[in-house]
């Protein structure tokens, strides 16, 4: 799949933002007044900024409002509802904390649940696609959720919890790679089933339908970046899990190191998200004899 910057930024930053909102909704950390304002501002910039980035890949962004209509069948539509629900309820809850110094627990809980639901529905947009075997497995939503919750913990400054959750998320990520590497072969889709010609002999793509490129090749066949995949996997894991964890368990952990941990974490998640798209192979590539 083409690793479009808009979707990479969207999933990374809104994942972090909604992760932070979830913790805030649970009252962790128990902030009020201007401190609460700062926390909420960061969470909203990340969550809303990510959502806005996602509209950049639309062909007709001016009609985006129509995406709310098909919640009965479409995960993208459900995501839109969850995101608006989370932002509205957390906005009310945050206003209570900032301006009235009052915690409306129930609204906070609802907001936390909707924040997680937003991350879950985002991940289901990818998970539901049978055409991309690497994404089509239960580990995909688990990975998105574990990184969102761990990143939220890191942002909300809960050092011990963040260390633990980052290690969990890193493990999920490694499992996703191991399972994902086998997914295409296990899907059973090959050039033989794609063309239905397998019973006659060995099928080879002889000539593509067009001499130039097209939408399908640009969007679904991305071979270029994959040759560095294993190096990038190590780099992303170091940046998003290992370095932040090491920094946080240092005896002289400070605010400066916390910012450093956060920056490396974000850089690592961005790299991993790039890989999430670049490594994903769509079955349509088979028609072109490519993956």
């Amino acid at each position: 799949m083409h690793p479009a910057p808009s979707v990479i930024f969207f999933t990374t930053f809104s994942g972090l933002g909604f992760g932070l909102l979830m913790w805030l909704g649970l009252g962790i950390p128990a902030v009020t007044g201007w401190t609460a304002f700062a926390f909420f501002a960061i969470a909203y910039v990340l969550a809303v900024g990510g959502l806005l980035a996602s509209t950049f890949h639309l062909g007709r962004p001016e009609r985006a409002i129509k995406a709310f209509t098909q919640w009965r069948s479409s995960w993208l539509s459900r995501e839109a509802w969850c995101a608006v629900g989370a932002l509205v309820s957390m906005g009310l809850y945050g206003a209570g904390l900032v301006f009235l110094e009052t915690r409306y627990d129930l609204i906070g809980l609802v907001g936390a649940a909707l924040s997680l639901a937003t991350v879950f529905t985002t991940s289901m947009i990818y998970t539901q696609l049978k055409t991309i075997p690497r994404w089509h497995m239960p580990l995909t939503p688990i990975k998105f959720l574990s990184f969102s919750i761990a990143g939220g913990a890191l942002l909300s400054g809960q050092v011990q919890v963040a260390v633990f959750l980052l290690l969990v998320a890193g493990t999920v990520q490694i499992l996703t790679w191991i399972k994902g590497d086998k997914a295409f072969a296990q899907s059973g889709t090959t050039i033989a089933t794609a063309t239905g010609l397998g019973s006659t002999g060995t099928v080879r793509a002889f000539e593509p339908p067009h001499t130039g490129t097209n939408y399908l090749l640009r969007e679904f066949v991305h071979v270029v970046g994959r040759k560095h995949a294993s190096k990038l996997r190590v780099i992303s894991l170091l940046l998003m899990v290992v370095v932040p964890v090491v920094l946080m368990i240092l005896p002289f952990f400070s605010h400066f190191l916390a910012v450093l941990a956060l920056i490396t974490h974000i850089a690592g998640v961005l790299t991993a998200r790039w890989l999430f798209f670049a490594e994903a192979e769509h079955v349509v590539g088979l028609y072109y004899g490519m993956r």
Partner: protein
Amino acid sequence: MEGWKMTTLPKHTEKKLGLVIDLDTCVGCHACVISCKGWNTENYGAPLSDQNAYGADNSGTFLNRVHSYEIQPEGDAAAQLIHFPKSCLHCDDAPCVTVCPTGASYKRVEDGIVLVNETDCIGCGLCAWACPYGARELDQAEGVMKKCTLCVDRIYNENLPEEDRQPACVRTCPSNARHFGDLGDPDSDVSKLVAERGGIDLMPEQGTKPINQYLPPRPKDTLLPDAGEEFDVLAPFLEPVASEPKGFLGWLDKTLEKL
């Protein structure tokens, strides 16, 4: 609320209109590709745009494309070249419809045709991600999703002579490799053809239940040396005349060899 009806796939469609494509007779002329592009640029919906049509890196939107595959049978039999036209298969269990957040993509109850309502489409591309066959292309000029309509504006069009009321690709095909009809009716010509020739689903494991069917190529004649006694009668005439070139050709061959 019409929009709500569109959100999911219909449980049942009255007809299952679709195409039967004969891989045995397709000659790979791409006439269907061109007639499709022509008809669908001039008629229903946004035109199929081209980008940089006369430049070096040209590309454009097409609803039908013809691939070519080489099949190498077991053993040392000669390879076969198969031309393979591909367009929307109007799947019964169309994943492209259910992923659509706007309801722009829908499957018609009356005939099973899968269409895009272009005024509702936000161009998110998700339906193209969900289609295993590469049957949908996002038009770069219009920003909306384009796909085969089974020439819905021809097949019911009473302004056209009756013989033209079929998809442009079917009407155009010079080798009669494309057939159009109701695959839900076991007595239709297309259904009989599929039964007779053993029509196949593409990527059945994807669970899309495609309506369009492909007729596999028939086995080719074998004209290999050991094919039978009767060929031996002519065999001497087919011996190479000279294995080593002689005379002027021999001199030329040797001279060129030395260079």
